[in-house]
């Protein structure tokens, strides 16, 4: 009986745990900005807790560097079970500028299963609140993949390429 009630009320009091995995602190400052009176996120019932065992939501900021990789896994395992992970900032969504550096393992998605990504460098506090509202189901998603095309091509290139592939043995060798 209590479980259904807990599930329904889960969205009304989310507790946030903030984990910085080697960020430049820009995203961390924006996360703390969200708790200031101007953009107050406590009116949704959220508060910042300091121990992952009390928290429901883990906010990851920063491209996950090599020394912090096992620690992020440990912190994720310490969160009790209905849990969400938000990756805040461009570094957490894909590694940012440093995605191919020697010390960076490339963003939060390679370490923990992330529920929501918040791109931005750093994301505006309103963007963070928007992501939280999206997770609670209050607003709709506003991005979708975009494909633009200049004009319809008068040439039938795709079939020509296929014919060429079948004909040329060097291409077959290179493909192997």
């Amino acid at each position: 009986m209590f479980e259904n009630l807990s599930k329904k009320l889960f969205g009304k009091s989310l507790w946030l745990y903030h984990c910085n995995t080697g960020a430049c602190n820009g995203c961390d400052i924006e996360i703390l900005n969200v708790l200031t009176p101007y953009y107050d996120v406590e009116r949704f019932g959220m508060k910042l807790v300091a121990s992952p065992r009390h928290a429901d939501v883990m906010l990851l900021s920063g491209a996950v560097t090599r020394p912090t990789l096992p620690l992020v896994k440990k912190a994720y395992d310490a969160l009790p079970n209905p849990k969400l992970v938000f990756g805040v900032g461009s570094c957490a969504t894909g590694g940012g500028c440093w995605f191919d550096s020697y010390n960076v393992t490339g963003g939060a998605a390679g370490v923990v299963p992330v529920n929501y990504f918040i791109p931005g460098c750093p994301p505006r506090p309103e963007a963070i609140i928007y992501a939280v509202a999206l997770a609670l189901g209050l607003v709709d998603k506003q991005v979708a993949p975009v494909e633009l095309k200049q004009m319809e091509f008068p040439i039938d290139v795709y079939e020509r390429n296929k014919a060429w592939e079948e004909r040329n043995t060097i291409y077959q060798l290179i493909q192997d």
Partner: protein
Amino acid sequence: MDIVYIVVNIIIFLAFAPLFEGIVRKLTAKVQSRQGPPVIQPYYDLIKLLGKENFIVGNWVFKLAPLMSFAAILSVICFVPLGYTANFLTQYADVITIIYLLTMGGVSILLGALSSRNTFAMMGASREMVTMIMVEPVLAMTFFVGAVKVKSLGIDATIFSVMNTGYSWAVLLMMVLYLMALQAFVGKQPFDIAEAEQEILEGPFIEYSGPNYALFKYSMMLKQMFYASLFVMVFVPFLYTGVYALDIAIQLCEIALVYVVIALVGATNPRLRIDQAVKYYAVLIVLALSAVGLSVYGI
């Protein structure tokens, strides 16, 4: 018939404690010029915490500690004469039992913290110990001021001593001292050194998650409401009507006013270091002893 009083006590305390905590949070937010959480937010917090997974990090003491703390504060609530009516359990306990049970609640927090095998929990536990030690004499003196006058240690005699024998200088001094010491009783700024100190250290509850943490939080809220109601019962007895339900309603309003004072003081003060808090309390303890001395001489 008397069991009704006990049941009403328990129900009122359990139902209203999170509401008053919500009032404190909302008022703190308004003083900081932001819109705070809704007033029933602690109810949501508790129910959500009950639905989370329970990690057991220590041994059997870890599992026992929240239950012990909740049980201690519930037993104290059963004895308390809310509404100016003593129930049948009140004659079986006296003032020393209340002090003992409150200390047992504090000790169970210490047990829970020390069985967590975490350095931060150990530091939080040591601060909680110091807070408990420094707070207890003032609480004891609050009771003894009344006990000395009526020459008995029974709960209803001591708590209603002001109602029965009227105000005196000792009682007024004790009232001021209780208000100044109230913040440490309930564990808010400037004295929330041990428990809610998630900003500086992690506090003694760092390894607790889910339902165990909900029990600890609930016992904290009940302890806050107990201390506020103790102030109302001992020092503000002049709105006494004879009707039970009306008395309870009036007392709840007065408790809400005490909570408003707690919230305002908590929102405007910084957190004191442990040695500064102990120095402040040393002065209060000396003054409390002098209040008891005044009441011995009948002033």
